[in-house]
């Protein structure tokens, strides 16, 4: 594990040059230019601390968990369960048994939909989500509502990309069985007032799921302070491996939830007449889990914690401010999403040029951005767009990289006039 690149005294400030040495993938060329990786909202690059943790598992501890009496299996089990504890600590949960390992944020939402909401959802009931949800927090609810004859209700957003709280309050009703809302919008960067939203829902006895995929890498999350009922996130958006995610659920909810998938590890005993299910969280972890993923995920969170999320947030906030100003100075650029509070996601369009053409030209200059609907087509439709360009910043991005982005956009203007 590398030493955190934080100054010795005073408020923690990121030493970006040093941070960058922790990420091998950043040091390569793309189309003959130094790689400028600004697609962090899609996935982040991985620090050596994560790569080494995964490698160490395979080189030393590789075996299955919760099964073997032998030494390697014991070590693997300890590492896997320690990873659970690391995630619990990072998001401020009170009990490791409230952390369920999943494949992804998407799976976490599907799990809550199937095991918590389905049994209590009746015809005429409502599920409430927002306009700025990722498809992963729309489609599972659509499927469930269709199956149960329930209705999916949508909280509107204003032109800046802020949730309209007064409308939200009006939409909450005795029929609402769950609120599912994104903490940070992947398409707009909006940081939603989830604490207030949870309070409003709880005042009416409605449980709340927070999609925290984009929150985890950017600022400290405390699920107990938020008082959310469920919080879902992914490892790979926060410098960890792909294929691993976590679901936090309040213990009292998890205890009453039915299994999600059947299989090994989620049972206490099985006969052909019936099965006794294991306790949470194991009840929801059928089959051999992504052991190295969990270990890598925990290593990523330790890496983030070592730098201090306040320092990360301050650095990224400065990058966003600088990038917004610089990009808006390019002729014809229009910002999409100007919420009061934003994470380091910069979505924009350019007059007369389609986002995909911008993406291709930026790529030819070594600048990697996302161009498209960001798996959030309804929010694109809200702005009358089919796509935007999205530059999203991570703790290892530098101001020089903003210059490269702007230089790339000027090339776009040269080509398209």
């Amino acid at each position, binding site marked *: 594990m590398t030493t955190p690149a934080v100054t010795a005294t005073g408020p923690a400030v990121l030493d970006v040059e040093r941070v960058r040495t922790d990420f091998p993938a950043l040091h390569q060329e793309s189309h003959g230019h130094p790689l400028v990786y600004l697609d962090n909202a899609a996935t982040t690059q991985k620090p050596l601390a994560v790569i080494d943790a995964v490698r160490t598992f395979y080189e030393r501890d590789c075996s299955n968990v919760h099964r073997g009496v032998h030494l390697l299996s014991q070590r693997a089990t300890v590492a896997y369960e320690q990873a659970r504890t690391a995630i619990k600590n990072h998001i401020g949960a009170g009990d490791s048994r409230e952390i369920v390992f999943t494949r992804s944020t998407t799976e976490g939402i599907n799990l809550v939909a199937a095991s918590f909401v389905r049994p209590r959802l009746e015809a005429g009931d409502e599920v409430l989500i927002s306009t700025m949800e990722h498809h992963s927090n729309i489609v599972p609810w659509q499927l469930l509502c269709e199956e149960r004859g329930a209705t999916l209700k949508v909280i509107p957003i204003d032109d800046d990309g802020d949730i309209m709280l007064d409308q939200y309050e009006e939409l909450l009703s005795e029929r609402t069985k769950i609120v599912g809302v994104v903490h940070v919008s992947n398409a707009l960067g909006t940081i939603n007032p989830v604490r207030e939203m949870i309070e409003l829902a709880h005042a009416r006895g409605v449980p709340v799921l927070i999609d925290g995929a984009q929150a985890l890498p950017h600022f400290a999350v405390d699920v107990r302070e938020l008082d959310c009922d469920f919080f879902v996130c992914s490892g790979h958006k926060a410098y960890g491996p792909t294929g691993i995610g976590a679901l936090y659920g309040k213990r009292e909810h998890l205890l009453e939830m039915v299994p999600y998938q059947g299989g090994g590890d989620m049972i206490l005993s099985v006969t052909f007449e019936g099965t006794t299910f294991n306790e949470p969280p194991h009840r929801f972890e059928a089959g051999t889990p992504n052991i190295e993923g969990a270990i890598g995920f925990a290593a990523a969170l330790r890496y983030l914690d070592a730098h201090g999320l306040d320092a990360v947030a301050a650095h990224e906030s400065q990058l966003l401010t600088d990038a917004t100003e610089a990009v808006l100075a390019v002729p014809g650029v229009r910002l999409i999403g100007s919420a009061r509070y934003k994470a380091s996601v910069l979505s924009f369009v350019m007059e*007369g*040029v*389609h*986002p*995909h*053409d911008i993406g*291709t*030209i930026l790529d*030819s200059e070594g600048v990697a951005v996302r*161009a*498209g*609907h960001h798996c959030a*087509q309804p929010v*694109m439709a809200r702005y009358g767009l*089919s*796509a935007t360009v999205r530059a999203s910043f991570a703790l290892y991005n530098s101001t020089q990289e903003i210059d490269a982005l702007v230089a790339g956009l000027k*090339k776009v203007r*040269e*080509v*398209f*006039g």
Partner: protein
Amino acid sequence: MSDMRELYQEVILDHNKKPRNCYVMDCATRSADGHNPLCGDVVKVYLRIEDGVIEEISFQGEGCAICTASTSLMTESVKGKSVAEARGLFEEFHEMLTGVAEEQGVELGKLQVFEGVREYPVRVKCATLAWHTLNAAMDGDDDAVTTE
């Protein structure tokens, strides 16, 4: 930069800015919708086919420069051609973008400007969406076609 000029040739930029045959055709005998779910590009192709000949062709849609220019140039190149000739042209066009063959059986004319797209595999579908949609319209296929 020179690479970008090869991809975004003047003809492409011109057709992107001023797409030809871009209107809703009221008297169409066939039409089809095309959609690229990866990027959200959508196109609708209208045809008036008489005696196996494409007498009139138009489109409506929204997409990137490659997609828009490709659709516009396609309408120009198949207008007045028989359905069979149009299909042959698509085969040649597709071959130019994805194939290994150096020789061409049919003269592609202006469509040759899309040769640069070969170098950008993720953009090939932008150039072929219109053609897939044209094929569906000629087949009388009512289902929307996708590039996937």
